[in-house]
Structure formats: C-alpha cells, structure tokens
C-alpha cells in the first residue's frame, strides 16, 4: 500500500487532524517518533533483562491504547479482560523480537485486534468483519468502576452506537501513543487515501448520535 505522502508515515495526534484539513505540516511528529523509538527500545531492552520497573513503564504507557482498541470489539467483558491479558503475555515473550520499537503501539494494536477477532469468531459463531462490534453495543465496565466522567461515558456510548469500522477508525485516530496513517491503514485494511474521507463521514455520524446531540444541547443551554 503506497502512502499518499511522507506526512502519512508520521504519527498523528488529535491536534494534527485539525492541521490536516488546512494542510499545515505536523511539525512535532518526527520528534515524537524518534523519541518513542529511543524510549521503547530502552524500555524493551531493560524489561527483557528483568527490569520490572521498565516493564511497568511499557504497560503504563500503552495500556490505554490496547484497552481502547479491545473495547471496540463487542466480545463481552470477560473476553475483553482475556484479550487484554493475552496482549501483555505476548509482548512479554516477544520483547527481544520487536524490530521497530517506534512501532510498538502498532504492534500491540495488531495483537489486540487479532486476539479480539479470534475470540469473536470462535465465541459468537459469526465471522463477518464489518459485523464485529455492531451487534452488541455494551460498555465493558460500569462507569463508577472505571472512574470516567459522565461526558466520557456519553462519548463512549456514542462510539459504541457507531460500532464497526467507524468506531475502530476514530478510536485509532485519537490513540495515545499515536498511530501513523500507515499503521491505521494496515490495521483496518483501509487504503490510506480513504482514511480522511472515512474519518469525516464517521465524525458526521458521530455528531448525529443522540448522545452527542445531547452534549451539544447541554452546551448550548449553558
């Protein structure tokens, strides 16, 4: 798959997406990528040598990303837990084989996606990719257990309502650490040139959900 431009190979943050529309170059992304490579390489090396603090740092810096990807698959709370655990077990035994430390986020996202799809296919007795996540719009944990705000819960509910590829695309586009255009393309099997237009359509759909309309009305009323 050929990237549309060299910018597409750089990590994009939520702020970068706004810049994208005005063709402003994401100045900081190369620095972010270089730092990530150095940090991840060092942490992987130390964790592989038995440094528990380095391992915890790797988990802490990527846990939210892995969890957000897994949550986009409607496989049930227990399966979410199993997949989350499996991702870290896989990393723990693969640390010396990670050739591109700067792409660790993408590696973890891919493992999470594959495990979730594997579980979904075998537990739900259905296979279609586009249906994954569309038949069961439930959140994984009660809000109180996750310490999330009401607004966060509302936005998650809106995302759950979108389901499928839109939910996954938007989640990946705001991931932290950020995923590159190329990585998102690979993970979703979506041409790089389609990501921008698909993102725009998904945001329109998201804004039309009852949850986001409610947020907008609340904001207007204040």
């Amino acid at each position, binding site marked *: 798959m050929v990237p549309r431009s060299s910018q597409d190979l750089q990590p994009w943050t939520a702020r970068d997406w706004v810049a994208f529309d005005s063709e402003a170059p994401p100045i900081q992304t190369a620095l972010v990528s270089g730092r990530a490579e150095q940090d991840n390489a060092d942490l992987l090396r130390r964790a592989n040598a038995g440094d528990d603090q380095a391992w915890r740092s790797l988990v802490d810096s990527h*846990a939210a990303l892995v969890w957000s990807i897994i949550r986009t698959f409607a496989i049930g709370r227990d399966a979410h837990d199993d997949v989350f655990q499996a991702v870290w077990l896989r990393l723990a035994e693969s640390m010396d084989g990670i050739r591109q430390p700067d792409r660790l986020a993408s590696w973890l996202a891919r493992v999470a996606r594959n495990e979730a799809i594997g579980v979904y*296919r075998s537990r739900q007795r259905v296979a279609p990719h586009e249906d994954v996540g569309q038949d069961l719009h439930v959140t994984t944990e009660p809000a109180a257990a996750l310490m999330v705000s009401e607004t966060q819960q509302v936005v998650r509910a809106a995302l759950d309502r979108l389901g499928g590829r839109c939910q996954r695309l938007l989640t990946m586009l705001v991931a932290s650490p950020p995923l590159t255009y190329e990585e998102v393309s690979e993970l979703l099997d979506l041409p790089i040139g389609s990501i921008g237009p698909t993102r725009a359509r998904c945001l329109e759909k998201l804004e039309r959900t009852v949850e986001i309309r409610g947020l907008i009305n609340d*904001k207007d009323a204040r």
Partner: protein
Amino acid sequence: MNEEELMSLLADATNTPPPARLLDAAYASRSWAEIDAELAALVDDSADLAAAGVRSSDTKRRMVFESSIGVADVELDSDNRQLVVRVEPASRVTVDYVKGSTGARTVDEPVSTATFDDLASGPARLIIDSEFGQWRSGWFTL
C-alpha cells in the same frame, strides 16, 4: 461542535486506563514468560484473514507456529472448548496447555496430534516436547 472539539472529546473518552485489576495482571505477565524453551513464530493466523475482511463461516481459529525444531498447526474451537495440535515433524510428542499462571494440562500422544477438551477460556500457550526438542507457542486467547 467542530471537528477539533469532537476529536478532543473522543481522545478524552477513549484514552483511559483499564480497570486496576487488569493493569495488575499486565504487570505480572512478564514473569510468566520466563521459560527456557524456544519461542515459535506465529506464521499464519486465520484472524488475520478476518481482519482483512475475508468472510468465512468457519468458527474455528487456525494458527501455525513455526520454530527451528518443528511446526505446530493449531485449531482452536472456542465454542466447543477444544484445541487440536498437529506437530511436524512427526514423532511422539508431549504437549502442555498452559493457562495463564495456573499450571498446565498435558497430553502425551504417539502420533504427533494432541487434543484438549473442556478448556477454560482465557490466555493460554502450548509447550511442545518432541524427540527433536522442546519449544513453545506464543500466547493466544481461547
């Protein structure tokens, strides 16, 4: 609401840590990986095809793990809680099905095929011992 606000809301809503019990399990998982057996590479995974949009009515997941010692063709039927392992080159094999940190179930087979039934769900891996050596699969989720 403009796109910047929407994306900011999304980032805030999705980039939250998992429950503490899962973080604790992730912290602990490094020590589970410490085992002296060659790690086989996952060279084929039917979940990859599903991710690429290939539709299939087959509910089983097929994975192929390859090491310098041998190849394990794994068929995972979560619905029936069954796992079948075929090992090449053929020899008498002992296969341990290791579930998390809770120990192993072993099948000793003379024909290079091991079948496990009534398995509990969750992360697991295989440790394969044949006359050619010992090796292990990566973790997968039943």
